[in-house]
């Protein structure tokens, strides 16, 4: 009995390592290389539709730290322009290219059960559970800009959770754990039917511009640079538009 179990375990181990080896061979045998793209969490749905690459979607700031700490990436696509600019000045990436834009909305429970009409309702209705991204995460910084413009910065302290990327904010509202969350319009669109959207007036909107750059240490630097440029192609821009991203502001 014991020997049988041992044999089973050994077989399982062998099978899994063989599978891993096969997967490894497949990804490393072919040309052209599949690029490793570190991209903002809000690009989760659209980027795989633009190109088949190896993606890592997270808060742009986490990705910037990873690039600074030397994790192997070929391309960095950020939900703001400041992080790529900082990395560019420090010599980690090539000159960033702005490639799309977005805007902020408030997502609330499906059907808006609490009757939230705008940011002001969040302050007026008692006990609303608000989630937002932490400061430093692009969407978290944009949220703070919006609230500052509306003279509602005190709302930051009422957040019940400070999330590490926009998708975490979104999921907390989708799951009903929070009542309202600050996300990009594109994220709200990705779960249409599961949440309701409350608009934020244009005068409070921050300038949400996405920028991408090739990582200098990439072993496929030329391909990475070309990939960044291709984000401005008509095809890529059409895809971005289809997912609700906005053309670059003038």
């Amino acid at each position, binding site marked *: 009995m014991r020997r049988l179990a041992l044999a089973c375990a050994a077989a399982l181990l062998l099978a899994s390592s063989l599978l891993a080896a096969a997967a490894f061979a497949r990804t490393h045998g072919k040309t052209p290389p599949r690029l490793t793209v570190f991209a903002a969490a809000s690009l989760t749905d659209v980027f795989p539709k633009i190109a088949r690459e190896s993606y890592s979607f997270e808060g742009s700031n986490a990705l910037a730290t990873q690039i600074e700490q030397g994790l192997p990436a070929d391309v960095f696509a950020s939900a703001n322009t400041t992080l790529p600019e900082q990395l560019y000045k420090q010599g980690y990436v090539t000159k960033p290219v702005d490639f799309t834009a977005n805007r902020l909305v408030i997502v609330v429970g499906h059907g808006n059960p609490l009757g939230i009409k705008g940011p002001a309702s969040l302050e007026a209705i008692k006990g609303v559970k608000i989630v937002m991204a932490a400061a430093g995460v692009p969407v978290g910084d944009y949220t703070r800009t919006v609230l500052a413009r509306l003279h509602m910065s005190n709302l930051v302290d009422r957040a019940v959770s400070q999330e590490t990327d926009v998708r975490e904010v979104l999921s907390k509202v989708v*799951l009903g754990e929070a009542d309202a969350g600050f996300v990009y319009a594109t994220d709200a669109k990705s779960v249409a039917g599961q949440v309701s959207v409350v608009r934020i007036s244009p005068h409070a909107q921050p300038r949400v511009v996405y920028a991408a750059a090739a990582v200098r240490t990439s072993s496929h630097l030329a391909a990475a640079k070309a990939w960044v440029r291709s984000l401005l192609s008509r095809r890529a821009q059409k895809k971005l538009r289809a997912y609700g991203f906005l053309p670059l502001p003038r």
Partner: protein
Amino acid sequence: MSRRVLGGVAVFAAAAVALAFLLLPIVAIFARVSPGTLVGQLSSPVVTDALVLSLKTGAVAQGLVLLVGTPAAYLLATRRFPGRSLAVVLVELPLVLPPAVAGIGLIAAFGRFGLLGGTLSALGIRVGLTWTAVVMAVAFVSGPFYVRQAIAAFEAVDADLVAASRTLGAGRARTFFRVYLPLARRGLAAGESLAFARGLGEFGATIMFAGSLQGVTQTLPLAIYQEFDVFPHGFTTALAMSALLVVVSGALLVALKVTLQWQPSERTSRFLFAPSS
């Protein structure tokens, strides 16, 4: 070179590689920045808030684990009933569950739209994204470490001593407190330190079910994760908190080893050793 020597070299080489691989990341945490910087970072409010929260939620969670887990383990260790083995397996299941699965499970059970969500909402209770959620996550992932060890500890208690206690007229309760608990205490302590250490490191289930808010739900591992995201200077703070957790976890492990090796005197004499004079 003889075969034996070669074999010996191979074994030593493997051991050296294993040790280096396991040790290097831990050494690196302390080697990246100066000890002064590490200690300096520990006074930042993010760190102190996270430390206090980790200790508080850990204490409450472990209190619950001891309170509920001890009778459960006692029952499973001393009674034979149909489905007992299944119950033991189920109690131990969270040990091998990925924390992310635990997080999803907690949301699916206690979340607003979860199995008990409607009932809890009707009572005006929302546990998601609260302090309570942290305690639940920690108790869920760490409890089995204690219960498992406690079952083994109670099972190891000499049945003759239990029988003697019962025939001498002690009731079940008295036998539990005067025979079972004292004899199983080392096992219980060992299980509890393991559970505490595991609870201190709890990350996945917490961030999914409890969210992350400084001073409310952001425990040390969550603070490390969040500080890592703070570009460009958070990495150092994350290193400092990691160093702190290495020290605390290391201390717990040493305490555990000492607990397990320490042999209580079986003599009735008050002296461990006979006086030499």
